[in-house]
């Protein structure tokens, strides 16, 4: 199988750095959670039941006629790959930590460009996920709902008149929809407006997380903003709400960037250049520092202060400098200090290669 490609290379469609407002919105993700009727949720499913779920859902992708638009589809069963490859898929955001570590008869279906990832036997039987570069909330939803329709044509979903699509966790019930944008907001952080903005966001039914989802910390000025409410709003309302709030945050970030340039160009240039210098020459680099310095360089490039690497290279570096990917690139096992050394090496070489 050619599935090695998914774990050997870092670059995914969502990292390409194109798409609308891609200087601020790195990527957009829409996820739909569904379950099959009459089978317990993965939490309680027996081995036999979860393998039945797997079989039934995988058989749907034989519907080539309706899936024509999606190109070739690759199925990866989690039991067929080792822990390192699982970790790499998590770092690329193609699967969740939950699917990697906890699932029974778990699998993921990927499109060739990795913009669609369909997880089976995660917390719910089926999780359809579309991952797009830049700010494309509506587009990602269109794609996800089209796939949802195809699955629905073949399997009976657990659905209730009153509660909507039934999910294992009460926070997903109703639409089962979670839409999110990953935003790079360095100027709002530097000008100390971020907390005010994030608390405002939480008052309109949205929530903010780090880039690796629930419970993860915001590193490198990257914030994942998503809808909190899934019940009692239509999908269109949820999508439009996220869209319009994200638009406003983009505006605020743009204004803050402009203010930085107008009021403290020398200071910000110095900061960007220092980070670029350190990334270009450092021999040891921990993940937190790497994320922060990469954020500085990205901002410098966006502001035209620095002729640095393209944003796709930066996106790729963010993923490639994660522990799993480093091990994959430089050898099977390394301790944390070796990891910091290899991380520094990888960044140095990447920056040297891309003037």
């Amino acid at each position, binding site marked *: 199988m050619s599935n090695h490609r998914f774990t050997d290379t870092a670059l995914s469609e969502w990292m390409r750095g194109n798409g609308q407002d891609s200087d601020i919105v790195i990527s957009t993700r829409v996820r739909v959670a569904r379950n099959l009727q009459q089978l317990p949720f993965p*939490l309680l499913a027996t081995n036999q039941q979860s393998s039945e779920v797997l079989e039934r859902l995988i058989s749907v992708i034989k519907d080539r006629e309706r899936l024509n638009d999606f190109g070739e589809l690759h199925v990866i069963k989690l039991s067929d790959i080792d822990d390192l490859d699982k970790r790499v898929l998590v770092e690329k955001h193609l699967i969740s930590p939950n699917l990697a570590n906890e699932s029974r008869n778990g699998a993921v279906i990927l499109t060739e460009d990795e913009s669609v990832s369909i997880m089976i036997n995660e917390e719910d039987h089926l999780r359809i996920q579309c991952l797009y570069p830049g700010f494309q909330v509506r587009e990602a939803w269109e794609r996800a709902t089209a796939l949802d329709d195809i699955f629905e044509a073949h399997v009976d979903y657990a659905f209730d*008149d009153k509660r909507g*699509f039934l999910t294992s966790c009460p926070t997903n019930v109703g639409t089962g929809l979670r839409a999110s944008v990953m935003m790079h907001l360095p100027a709002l952080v530097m000008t100390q407006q971020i907390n005010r903005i994030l608390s405002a966001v939480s008052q309109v039914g949205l929530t903010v997380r780090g880039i690796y989802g629930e419970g993860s910390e915001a590193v490198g000025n990257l914030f994942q903003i998503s809808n909190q409410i899934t019940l009692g709003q239509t999908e269109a309302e949820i999508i439009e709400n996220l869209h319009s709030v994200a638009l406003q945050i983009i505006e605020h970030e743009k204004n803050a960037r402009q203010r930085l340039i107008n009021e403290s160009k020398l200071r910000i240039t110095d900061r960007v250049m220092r980070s670029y210098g350190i990334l270009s020459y450092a021999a040891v680099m921990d993940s937190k520092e790497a994320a922060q310095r990469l954020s500085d360089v990205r901002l410098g490039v966006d502001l035209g202060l620095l002729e640095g690497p393209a944003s796709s290279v930066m996106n790729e570096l963010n993923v490639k400098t994660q522990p799993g990917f480093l091990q994959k690139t430089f050898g099977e096992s390394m301790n944390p200090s070796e990891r910091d050394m290899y991380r520094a090496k990888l960044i140095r070489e990447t920056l040297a290669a891309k003037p």
Partner: protein
Amino acid sequence: MICQECGKRPATLHFTKIVNGEKTEFHFCESCAREKGELIPGTSNGFSIHSLLSGLLDLDPSGKGQNAGAKPAQTLRCEECGMTYSQFSKLGRFGCSSCYKYFSDRLDPLFKRVHGNTSHVGKVPKRTGGVIQLKRKIEELKKELQFRIVQEEFETAAEIRDRIRELERNIAQG
């Protein structure tokens, strides 16, 4: 510092939990922390939404469980998968789709808190959800009917009334 759980390995994860101003510190080694499902950054266990939720789920909506007719939380059980309400409130997750039915008395306050709403208004399965779509359409038409009557547009109102009847007939015939 040594892990407070196993007392053997060095503690590498330290965190502070503050609940209502009451501060508790934890020091675990990685493997004990994982076992306890406490904070491991980037994984989905940790102080997840589920543990947060279980705080909400413990609430007895009827106050003291005296609500006439409603079973006390301890004995409430899903006949389909066997999950009890108290298990559900610990795990923060349902065991199967029937749990929604067996726990239904207690779910409105929960959904109200989490979502601010208790009923779904979004997408409906195309193949199996036909009736729901019709019902929703009827609700919409009834609202419009009221509006037209208030506006004294009786001809339009009559047309709408006929459409409602037709849709209702469709539902009755399955």
